[in-house]
């Protein structure tokens, strides 16, 4: 079945609500409206207002209340309306959600999912295009995943709901309306990276919104005789070092692409691990192609600011120039 990512998420959430009566959804405008992106469209009608909750306008409330619900045996799936509006909830996420298992010596499990539409490239106003993944990936106790295809959206959201740890589930909103085939089942565990395109010259590591861009760049590079292997990380915490290492082991070169800023970004983590563990097999330094170390710019500047196809191709050139 070919559906958009929005529809795939909707189907995945519907299945999660159907399969487990303890699952419930909470967020601003997710019920009557079906969410500003319509990810929860129709779910309130079918599952009722106790399971699809239009919350008051407060993100700390959404996550804080989800913690209490989880302690009472529920599996809340929270929607944060946009990446830039998660920050009022960050206190609850970092000081409570991420740490209660540890604090309680394992007695408290918080199977809470926090869905966040994230990333840029949609011509939007401020706070609607951010990439906050590293704040969460840097916080022990949280799992952080991101889907790049409708198929992954459908399966990963259900896997995230089934997790016994809190999961920050990042949805690349730029690709919400991109359609793709959705298979009825998956064999791929939530935390495993996937090779989206096989190649031999260089490994291009991407996740979420940069995956389709990376694939496009790989297509163009192929026309120039360069064989690019594209790895979709899918999970940032934990992340699948094994798959990435194996690929770089073969190609000897790595480029990492993300929209979040350069310094202290996820690319730095990847580069550090590769130089540590694949040092003898690397033929070039790990190249990062990312957003810049500035706040997200006004939308008229975003296409040059984001790591687009051209900047990724430049990065591939740089890697291959060694």
């Amino acid at each position, binding site marked *: 079945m070919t559906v958009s990512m929005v529809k795939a998420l909707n189907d995945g959430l519907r299945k999660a609500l159907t399969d487990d009566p303890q699952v419930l959804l909470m967020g601003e*405008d997710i019920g009557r409206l079906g969410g500003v992106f319509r990810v929860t469209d129709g779910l309130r009608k079918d599952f009722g207002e106790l399971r699809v909750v239009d919350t008051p306008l407060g993100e700390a409330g959404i996550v804080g209340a989800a913690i209490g619900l989880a302690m009472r045996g529920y599996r809340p799936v929270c929607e944060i309306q946009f990446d830039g509006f998660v920050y009022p909830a960050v206190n609850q996420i970092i000081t409570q959600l991420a740490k209660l298992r540890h604090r309680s010596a394992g007695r408290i499990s918080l199977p809470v999912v926090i869905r966040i539409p994230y990333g840029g490239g949609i011509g939007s106003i401020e706070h609607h295009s951010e990439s906050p993944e590293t704040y969460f990936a840097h916080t022990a106790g949280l799992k952080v995943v991101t889907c790049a295809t409708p198929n992954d959206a459908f399966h990963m959201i259900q896997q995230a709901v089934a997790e016994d740890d809190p999961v920050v589930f990042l949805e690349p909103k730029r690709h919400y309306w991109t359609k793709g085939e959705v298979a009825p089942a998956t064999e791929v565990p939530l935390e495993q990276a996937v090779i989206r395109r096989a190649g031999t010259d260089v490994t291009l590591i991407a996740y979420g919104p940069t995956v389709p861009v990376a694939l496009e760049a790989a297509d163009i590079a192929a026309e120039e005789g360069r064989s690019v292997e594209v790895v979709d990380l899918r999970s940032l915490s934990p992340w699948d070092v094994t798959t990435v290492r194996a690929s770089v082991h073969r190609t000897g070169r790595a480029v990492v692409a993300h929209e979040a800023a350069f310094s202290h970004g996820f690319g730095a983590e990847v580069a550090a691990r590769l130089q540590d563990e694949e040092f003898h097999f690397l033929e070039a330094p790990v190249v990062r192609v990312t957003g*810049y170390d500035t706040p997200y710019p006004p*939308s008229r500047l*975003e296409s040059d600011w984001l790591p687009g196809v051209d900047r990724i191709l430049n990065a591939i050139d740089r890697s291959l120039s060694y």
Partner: protein
Amino acid sequence: MANAVQDPLSEASLADPPIQLLDPSGKLSTDARLPLDLATVDLPALYRDMALVRRLDTEAIALQRQGELGLWPSLRGQEAAQVGAAYALYDRDMVFPTYREHGVAWCRGLDPVSLLGLFRGTTLGGWDPYAHHFNLYTLVIGAQTLHAVGYGMGLYRDGSTGSGDPDRDTAVLAFLGDGALSEGETNEAFIWAAAQNLPVVFFCQNNQWAISAPYSVQSRIPAAQRAAGYGFPGIRVDGNDVLACLAATRQALDQARSGGGPTLIEAVTYRVNAHTTADDATRYRAAEETEDWTARDPLERLRAHLETTGAVTDEYFTDLEQRERDLAERLRAGCRGLADPDASSPFEHTYAQMPADLRQQLREHLEFVSTGPQDGEQK
């Protein structure tokens, strides 16, 4: 289960009807709680500004439809609340708006074209917040209420409140929506303002909706009643009555300037259009409700008053129509003339001094922007 409670709000609202000085038919009345000396009010000017901001809004929506703006949050229906509140301000008073206060911006003397850049994507701000004592729009719900508090703390420390000097005492006017009442930060702002008796007036436009959430999702009592719990006065006015909004804000700002502390004003009004041009209000509210409120239009009642009292001549309306056309033309031309920002601007304005490392990124970025891809083959 809270969801099963029968619309408790309407009962509470009945017990606390908003104060009205000008009814929907255009008749004036008085209210002992809200004295207003009409000799101090320029009714034709009030109407003119309301009509002009409505035109500004209509034009911006048209520009969005034509693809010139990415988005526009309409103020339609809230002209009286905004213009009334703005008319109570002194130039030196500081305003902290949300993203919908185009009417206040207009009254503060901002170039209306400067309101468009943020929604066109040419800027994240668009004006000098100090020049008109009107802060940049704040898009993060509730955040600005605390900025207003801090500004009020500064005024207090400067001796610019409660000094008794009418040329010196200053207040802060913070705008917020009904949805913003639920953010923790708003509640912190109320607590700080109360505990320190700060010269801050919180002006809540209760337009009944926070995107798709009706007011009952946020509260079971009228917003104005909340103030008592924090320890300062709350007043509930008809937000479609420009005189009640002006009188309430004037009274509250006077009190704040003189050292009397904060007030929460709830202006009961209605968001006539969808939340923004990206929203579809038919998904969550009935057309009849919107029609009901449109019958209480803020402009119509003042116009009716001006016409029946003969306060203005036909020339007034002809002149106003011309001004509206001029404004529309200015917005259309101005919008298309808004230049794209420089590729270097995000780098230049991130820190007071650009760190060396960022300067290197800027160099690489400018090279990329000017030369495009290195091998010149890609798009």
